[in-house]
């Protein structure tokens, strides 16, 4: 009888470890982690030495020091005796302002251009196509600086281009009427809000009734009547508390109204057209992804063209459009940091000033990164929620 060797496959043998995939995986991971820890240790020790040599203190205490510089566009109270921390908040808000404005305009431009590019009219589709290709393939920074130079070359204040004696365009930007809220303005705002809520309720009821009985209801007109009616009624009832402060041409300068800085105008123009061109391509691809049969089926059901677009094409196209649209919104937000090139005082521009004054490089850059990472996470969380709400409900 042949002798049976004892089974040793379970016993630990170092030479076998290398051939065991799991053991090798653990080894690689340990090496990676050790390498990263080593790298971090070297970086930290180098930084400590370098900071000590330069005589710099680290930490975020500088945020409470006096900033002593001015910011020309501020949403909250700020003056040059305010702190660095407050300056950062003002800058962050300015970034959000241009990002929100840009996203709104880019979406409108993108959808219009995307649809026009699919137009059956040869000239329209070609002109829009040429514009889209040119705008997409020229660096954004160039476009931002270009618009800025164009706006700075506009006429001086005295020779402003006036539109309907209300909006003035000159080399200091755009000056336009601005609402002034007097006593009782809250009533008007409350009425506006109530109108919106009521419009939503009516639309909900109308949809339910249509599902039940098939009878349609003009909920769009109804919503318009509710919102406009409630707001106007409240406005008159409260004695017209909201007035518009229109700019008036004085002897040397325009007075009153609200001035949008040339930097904001240039940045907004460039960001919204550049991103709009990208969105146009996304919209076009989304619409093309809806198969022709869907349109034909809608025609066979007797739907008119407008209804086909609204009820058949758009809901299906949006599923394709929304995910890349999210990343365009994120890109726009991040690209708004190019503001520093033309001196729009966003968070990067203000941080740059703070950095030059205080020398707190590490802290300023970590504030940048934390700010943009938070914005990115918030935007993508919102868009993920929206995407889930329009996604195809499958069995």
């Amino acid at each position, binding site marked *: 009888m042949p002798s049976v060797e004892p089974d040793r496959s379970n016993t630990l043998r170092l030479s076998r470890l290398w051939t065991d995939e799991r053991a090798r995986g653990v080894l690689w991971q340990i090496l990676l982690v050790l390498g990263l820890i080593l790298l971090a240790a070297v970086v930290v020790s180098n930084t400590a030495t370098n900071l000590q040599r330069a005589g710099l203190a680290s930490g975020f205490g500088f945020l409470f020091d006096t900033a002593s510089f001015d910011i020309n566009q501020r949403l909250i109270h700020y003056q040059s005796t305010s702190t660095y921390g407050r300056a950062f908040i003002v800058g962050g808000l300015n970034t959000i302002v241009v990002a929100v404005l840009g996203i709104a305009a880019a979406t409108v431009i993108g959808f219009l251009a995307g649809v026009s590019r699919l137009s059956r009219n*040869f000239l329209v589709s070609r002109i829009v196509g040429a514009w889209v290709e040119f705008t997409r393939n020229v660096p954004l920074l160039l476009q931002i600086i270009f618009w800025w130079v164009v706006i700075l070359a506009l006429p001086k204040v005295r020779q402003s281009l006036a539109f309907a004696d209300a909006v003035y365009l000159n080399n200091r930007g755009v000056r336009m009427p601005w609402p002034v809220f007097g006593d009782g303005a809250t009533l008007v705002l409350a009425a506006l809000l109530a109108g919106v809520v009521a419009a939503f309720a009516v639309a909900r009821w109308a949809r339910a009734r249509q599902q039940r009985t098939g009878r349609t209801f003009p909920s769009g007109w109804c919503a318009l009547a509710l919102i406009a009616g409630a707001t106007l009624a409240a406005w008159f009832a409260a004695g017209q508390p909201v007035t518009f402060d229109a700019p008036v041409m004085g002897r040397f300068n325009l007075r009153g109204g609200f001035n949008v800085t040339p930097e904001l105008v240039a940045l907004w123009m460039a960001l919204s057209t550049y991103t709009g061109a990208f969105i146009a391509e996304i919209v076009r691809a989304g619409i093309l992804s809806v198969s022709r049969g869907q349109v034909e089926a809608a025609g066979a059901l007797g739907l008119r063209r407008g209804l086909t677009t609204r009820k058949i094409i758009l809901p299906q196209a949006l599923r394709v459009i929304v995910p890349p649209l999210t990343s365009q919104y994120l890109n726009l937000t991040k690209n708004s940091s*190019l503001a520093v090139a033309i001196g729009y005082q966003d968070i990067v521009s203000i941080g740059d000033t703070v950095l030059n004054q205080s020398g707190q490089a590490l802290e300023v850059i970590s504030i940048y990164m934390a700010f943009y990472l938070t914005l990115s996470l918030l935007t993508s969380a919102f868009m993920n929620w929206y995407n889930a709400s329009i996604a195809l409900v499958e069995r």
Partner: protein
Amino acid sequence: MSVRAFHRLQAELLPQRPPPASTVGLFGWLRANLFSSGLNLALTAASVAVLALALPPFFRWAFLEADFSGVVGNDCAGVGACWAWLDQRIGQFIYGFYPAELRWRVNIALVLLAPALAYVLFERLPGARYGRWFTAAYPLLAGVLLLGGFGLDGVGTDKFGGFMLNVIAGLAGIALSLPVGILLALGRRSRLPAVRVVSVAFIEVIRGVPLITLLFVAIVILQLFLPPDVTLDQLTRVMIMITLFASAYMAEVIRGGLQAIPKGQYEAAQAMGLGYWQAMRFIILPQALKVSIPGIVNTFIGLFKDTTLVIIIGMFDILGQARLLQTHPDWIGKVDHETFLFAALFFFVICFSMSRYSMKLERRLDTTRR
């Protein structure tokens, strides 16, 4: 009565008649594409109006009324475009501040770039086998030519600028970000948790912040991280950051490609006895990269456009040269639009060709059709 009385006998085929004149030819095309309905007619009228308002003044400005000669901005009449600077300053736009007597070295590097690129971009070129080696050796060759060494005078990277700086930063970023991006994408899909966490963290942080903050890192922070006696050249630091930035985006594009490969391919590779790296090298990556080519080229285009950002940290690429000339006392206020147009056309030509090339490649590599 014969059957003949009831139907006519046609002995030969009737000649084909032309389709109605309104549906064919130029006329039919015009009718279908421009005047098919009232709305279409209005759109056509609006488009023609836009073209008529925009194009003739542009051509008058750019060519007919333009000035092409002169030494300073005031030599231009100012009615049309002032192209006189092209003759005077084109050197700066191409070479930046590279010493004039050494510009031939840049020229040679640029001329050699053509075959080096061609051997990567096009198949079926004569001598393709050696060509690939030439491409591989090109970075070293170009580095020596541009920076000096081996008997050539040294030139600092602070002298780089203009067109040359965009091309160098763009090409280096492109060449380095692809391999780093592939590694990151594989890392993100790895089964080893530590590798995956590190890759995900790196990719998401880089993608979440603007490039400009990374450039600030390159300028003000990277030096803090290094030992006190080590200094990195500014251009190198910037290129490291541009590469890291592009590779995070590249990783996501390639991950999309990897996800598109059916599981069966991975299993088949394992069944063949291939190890992880062999399976990736021979089975998975060739397919995944093919799928992700459009995305890769888009990332390249983005990266190339992003090279203009170096002006924010004080380097003078082609846009920087345009800005320099616009504020130069001899030319101030005269060449704003001209220099922007020149720089814009430069980027448009390169980026647009890249996107067309990717579309062509996509069709060629699409083995599912035909």
